[in-house]
């Protein structure tokens, strides 16, 4: 039974992995820094690992989907990230893809009588 629980956890992790980027991009229409973004995502009910998110933000910037700026006027300097036009476009396409997938999987999950 313990094995089953472990397996379930690893499968859930696998399932969520594919949705991380979509989740992050979807929350960056307005600019956020690392920790504020984690909170924002958590407030929506999704947990996200800081160790996954911080490197991911840099990667998405490197891929040309996000722009970043440093705000050095606060008590601690923060790097803010925001979707750029290319990121906005890609998010739109990913969202469509997600909606289709969601629909298809829902169909698959209906038990045939």
């Amino acid at each position: 039974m313990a094995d089953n629980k472990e397996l379930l956890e690893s499968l859930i992790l696998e399932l969520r992995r594919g949705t991380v980027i979509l989740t992050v991009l979807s929350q960056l229409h307005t600019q956020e820094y690392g920790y504020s973004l984690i909170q924002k995502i958590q407030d929506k009910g999704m947990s996200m690992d800081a160790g996954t998110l911080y490197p991911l933000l840099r990667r998405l910037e490197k891929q040309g989907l996000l722009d970043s700026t440093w705000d050095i006027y606060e008590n601690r300097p923060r790097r803010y990230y925001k979707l750029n036009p290319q990121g906005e476009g890609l998010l739109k396409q990913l969202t469509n893809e997600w909606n289709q997938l969601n629909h298809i999987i829902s169909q698959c999950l209906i038990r045939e009588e």
Partner: protein
Amino acid sequence: MEKVTIYVSEVIRYLPHKSQQEIKKELTANIMDMVDELTAGGMSEKDAVNSVLTKMGNPRLLADQYLDKKAYLIGPRYYPTYVIIAKIVSAAVAFGITVAFFVQLLFSADASVFQSIIQWLGSVFMGVIQAIAWVTLIFAGVERSEEVGVFKKVEFAKDDWNINDLPKAHQDSKKSDRIEGLVGFLFAIIFLILLNTRLELFGVYMFDQGTLTKIIPIFNMQNTASWLPLVSMAVALNAFSDGVTMALRNQTRLTHVFRVALNLMSFILIAYVLINGNVFNTELAAQVAPNSVELKNLWIWVQRNIVVVIVIANIIGIAIQTFQIARFNRT
């Protein structure tokens, strides 16, 4: 706070220099934000720092996430080929060293057997490790060269695979083919070792009343540097080709093409050496029988025509292999 500094330093020390300061600043700010939230909830700073850093996890793994690079030496695309090549090369090295030691043992009377066995084990161990290290290094290089796309066109690693790349026929190697490969492989290795350690054994053995008086070498012993390395290379290529036949459970068009290419290279080397080099002992006839004109003429004839014999034998061999490739192309 000191712990946070240490943690962040541990993360960035694995990262490229140019991004270190940026990530240090950003990561520290993010960690301190998380700590602040916990202390605002009533936790002591020390506990909050411990809790946040524990949650962030192993700094090495976090650095890996930032690096976003291949975290493996040889990926799935090349791994099976890597294993086969590593096996062939290790087997060749281990076998070669073994033969060399037997030869040494046979010809040096005073070596103690026990000492020789220890030495042999040590040499095989070191030899195999070195062989694997080189093969690994080369494959790691190939894996990384993918970023520049050098090997993208190689059949088994192609990205834009299409249905025409599928082998036309699937054929399990016949057991006899694999045994033939093994025998060829062993002979080539023994030949290679003897060529390079006991060249004088290849010769005409002169007996006087039943006892060996001397061996007159067939090969040119004076200027070995002009031909021996090239001949060795040719034999090694042949050994490798036989090694591939021996190691593979099934043959594809690619493995046939590969073997033909190896044999062709080996053949070109041999032909080049025979045409240009002075491989043979030109004085052989005079040393064996100083007064025999027939033998002298025969030896001259042999030296001239051995090129022709080898060319014909190789052309037949390569033609057979090419025919086998054509068989794979037949639908």
